[in-house]
């Protein structure tokens, strides 16, 4: 599977540009999409799955062109939106059957078998014949994931998929996506940085409709190397430090407050007992966003 996005732009009415001249090429594997609220992630994904029409630019999926071959694109893609509803009066199995019907019967898939496998995969086999209206948030999310996987898509796009899941479900789902990404493109958009650091081999940071970074997570983390520090201060000093430095973590102890501070070496020289730390993806995300204040979306 090969996905090529060229100069993709989406302008909403009243001049708001959600995505601007974005170019990206993706091959099979898990691709993480990171960005603040309002960065244009959801708009980008909606364009990729034919729900939104781009203002300009082209998107090609293995030779299929967005806008021209939309039905073919729908046949090879699966999408789990950030916000969606389910028909509460249908059972989980009936719900998946209905979506299988929408995929059409020309496909070679044995839907009954496929639905059984998916229900098993998302851990809903036991409640397959219960109505969706009584499902918990996590169960609904898992059913949403199952419908996205129905057609065994070559391009799977998931928007904040782990938001409603408990930690063990989250790990299970991340592993499932990881397994799937072997022979397809999986685009994972999330605010949960952990999800990207533990499952993606490729990522991008999107802000104000522009790409700020594209590459491996390790390369992204490296951008913050030498800029993350720890210090321990008395509680009275915290407010003063906060005014001068970006504090990204604080833990209160009996003998003071341990702070995780972001900044250049010369800027943190005034802090007591300052020690360098290995950056995480979250540190890198905040560092990069701090360096690009114009791209931060103020809501």
């Amino acid at each position: 599977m090969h996905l090529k996005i060229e100069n993709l732009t989406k302008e909403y009415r009243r001049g708001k540009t959600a995505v601007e001249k974005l170019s990206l090429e993706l091959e099979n594997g898990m691709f993480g999409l990171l960005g603040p609220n309002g960065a244009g992630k959801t708009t980008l994904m909606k364009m990729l799955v034919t729900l939104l029409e781009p203002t300009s630019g082209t998107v090609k999926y293995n030779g299929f062109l967005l806008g021209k071959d939309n039905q073919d694109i729908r046949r090879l893609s699966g999408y789990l939106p950030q916000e969606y509803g389910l028909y509460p009066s249908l059972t989980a199995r009936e719900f998946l059957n209905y979506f299988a019907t929408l995929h059409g019967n020309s496909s070679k898939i044995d839907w009954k078998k496929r639905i059984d496998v998916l229900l098993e995969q998302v851990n809903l086999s036991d409640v397959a014949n219960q109505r969706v209206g009584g499902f918990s948030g996590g169960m609904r999310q898992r059913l949403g994931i199952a419908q996205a996987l129905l057609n065994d898509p070559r391009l799977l796009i998931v928007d904040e998929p782990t938001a409603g899941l408990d930690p063990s479900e989250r790990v299970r789902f991340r592993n499932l996506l990881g397994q799937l990404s072997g022979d397809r493109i999986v685009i994972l958009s999330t605010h949960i940085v952990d999800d990207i650091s533990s499952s993606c081999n490729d990522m991008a940071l999107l802000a104000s409709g522009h790409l700020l970074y594209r590459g491996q997570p390790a390369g992204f983390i490296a951008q913050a190397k030498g800029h993350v520090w720890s210090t321990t201060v008395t509680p009275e000093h915290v407010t003063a430090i906060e005014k001068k430095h970006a504090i990204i973590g604080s833990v209160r102890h009996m003998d003071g407050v341990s702070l995780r501070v972001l900044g250049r070496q010369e800027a943190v020289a005034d802090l007591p007992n300052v020690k360098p730390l290995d950056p995480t993806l979250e540190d890198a995300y905040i560092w990069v966003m701090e360096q690009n204040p114009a791209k931060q979306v103020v809501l």
Partner: protein
Amino acid sequence: MNTFPLTNQTTQISKDEWRLQWRSWGTWLVGLFLMAVVISEHPVFSIFSDFSLAEAAGLWADRVTIVGSLVAILTVPFALDRVRRQRVAPLEFTKPFEKFAYIIGKFAGATLPLVILAAVSLVIHLAITLATQNSPIIRSMTVYLTQAALVTFVPLLFITSLTYGMSVYIRRPIVIIPISLSYLILTTATQASADARFSWFSAVVRPDYFGGVIPESWMSIVLAHHAIYLGLSVVLLTLAVFGFQRGRFIDDRMPVKWWKQVRLPTFPLIGARFRMLGNGYFVAALLMALVAVANTMSNPNPFLRVEYAFFGLEFYLSVSGLLILSGILARDKESDVLDMVLTKPVNRWRLVAERLLPALILFGLIGVASVFVLNAFYEPLPILKSLLIALSTGIYLGMVGMTVANLTRNTLAGVGVGMLYWFFEAGFNGRFTAPVYLLIVSHQLPAELGDVWLNPAIWLPVKIGSLILSAFLFIANGWLLDSGPARRRTVTAILIGYPLIFILGWRLIPIFMG
């Protein structure tokens, strides 16, 4: 495009839509209430008893057509809207279904209530005929099916196609319903008031207007009429298939809503409260007010102008009241704001008053405008009495709708039950609800209920009493928003209290009136 998979997909989609309709309590509620109304209209219950088998079948098929049309108007627009309202659109519209299969499949599935209605009505008719006329069952069935084929099939297909076709272009059923109702009522009511037996503008050909059976001499005209409406149905469905756009049901692609650019001045509290009322329900309420005025002014009878004005003001404006008032509190739950509202230290009485006052003012303005338009351009009316008629029934019906909406936490349920109450009263003419009969001005009470109920000195205080009762219930509704024992107690009180009041009214009012 391969035809076989397409047909297969259409069938599958229609089956799934059938399932959704079957499991929708709203569909059942609409169907059952309207069936009750239509049963009350069966010719054998009439004071006239010399109906032939064909006349009885014709009149029954006629009632089934009218009720079926109402069922179609109240259920079919929701088939496509459900996808948007239940937020399934982002999942559904990324799937590679064929437009034809999707639209026609959904249409076929949405007709389920009508199919059931037709089947049930056949059984009921046969049972009644068998019990009262001693006619052989096969003959009764043949006569009925002939009449149904002639009277029912095409109008129902047309009304279904019309409402469904509109739902492809207009996303809000609450706008489609009044438009379709207006069409149905105006075309049939105009016929009745003009004493015309047939109208090319109406999809319905009523044997009622021909005295029971359509005469042979009219058959060619009726068949031509049906051929035209059959053709129009096909055109409407074709337009629905071609006009369907996935994006129309996904909010991001909505065109700029010009009316959202209009901002009322933000006076403290009032501006925002009024803006909260500006939605599809308000547009529908305005449409009903227009129907009230238009229908009244289309009355050709010069001797009954005041009566017609009263009829319009009560019959149609009560629906406006229902539409405006029903959702003013339930909306909080629907837009997921309720939890935030209830955790604030706001006085509930103030909350209720802040919602009620603008809604009443808005409905009052609609009522006053309607009365003054009729007074100026139609017939001089007694202003105070007209206003009382225009507003009291609407507020009362609105309170009922609001109670249901708050109990179910669903505005549509409130409006739906209010509409059913309205149909029920229009159908039974107060036979079961005389003390607080909803449409006391618009419909005459049956003579067998006696002089007590026909005395206008009763209904005015009773209606005002009902208003006070509703106002009390409304204040209680403010507390209904909380879940827990208090809510359960109030629900129980309402469910037991309402029927009790009716029973007591039935028994006590005639005694007091001597």
